[in-house]
């Protein structure tokens, strides 16, 4: 059996209307893995959180570029979302559930908590004025040989 590997990277402007674009794009990329509805919704939710954070927190009222990279490696999906925005001063604090710096925008402070809940692993790299990179992984449960293989 050949190993399944596939990779894509998409950059887009930080308009809130592009949040749904990011979700559709990641779902379209993963569809050849035949994920369950549940698995796909989990990944779409995590991507939505990370992309929304880059748009709201990273760039605020500026328009910048959000990058989403997605890799399929066998039964593992790796998604990375990054921006070149203001960055995070205290990552530990930022990741606490209910912590938000934008209560005025009715942010719930649950973004990182959702990413952790819906993915297997979450890694946040950031520094003030150096943007933010969120890397998440999730194993897809359906055995390889039952999948429709899109890679040839």
């Amino acid at each position, binding site marked *: 059996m050949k190993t399944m590997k596939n990779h894509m990277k998409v950059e887009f402007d930080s308009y*809130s209307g592009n*949040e*749904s674009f990011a979700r559709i794009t990641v779902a379209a990329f993963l569809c050849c893995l035949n994920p369950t509805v549940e698995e796909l919704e989990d990944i779409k*939710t995590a991507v939505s*959180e990370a992309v*929304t954070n880059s748009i709201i927190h990273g760039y605020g009222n500026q328009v910048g570029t959000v990058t989403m990279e997605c890799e399929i490696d066998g039964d593992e999906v790796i998604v990375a979302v990054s921006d070149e925005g203001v960055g995070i001063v205290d990552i530990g604090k930022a990741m606490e559930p209910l912590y938000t710096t934008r209560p005025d925008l*009715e942010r*719930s402070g*649950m973004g990182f*908590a959702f990413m952790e809940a819906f993915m297997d692993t979450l890694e946040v790299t950031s520094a003030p004025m150096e943007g933010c990179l969120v890397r998440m992984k999730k194993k897809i449960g359906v055995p390889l040989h039952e999948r429709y293989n899109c890679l040839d």
Partner: protein
Amino acid sequence: MDDFQVINSYLCIRMPKELDHHKAIRIREMADRYIEGQHIEFVVFDFEDTSFMDSSGIGVIMGRYKKIQILGGRVLAVHVSDRIRRIFRLSGLHKIVEIVEDEE
């Protein structure tokens, strides 16, 4: 907009198919116009059409709760799918929103 309906002191909000930050902004704006303009005691969020919701949805529900609670009002949710129920639980929203179960 047809997605907002006032029946007596109930404001019923039909939530969109995909409830994200982009959509949440509009719902917040519209809902507050109704809450501030009329005598609203109950805000009912209807999730019948909703297949996607992220934490932005939590924010918009929590925000309406805070507003209406001051006036002694309450927040309800109908047609809540298993996934949205899970998200409510994850965020503690199930403690402040009354989920009205679907009839059989």
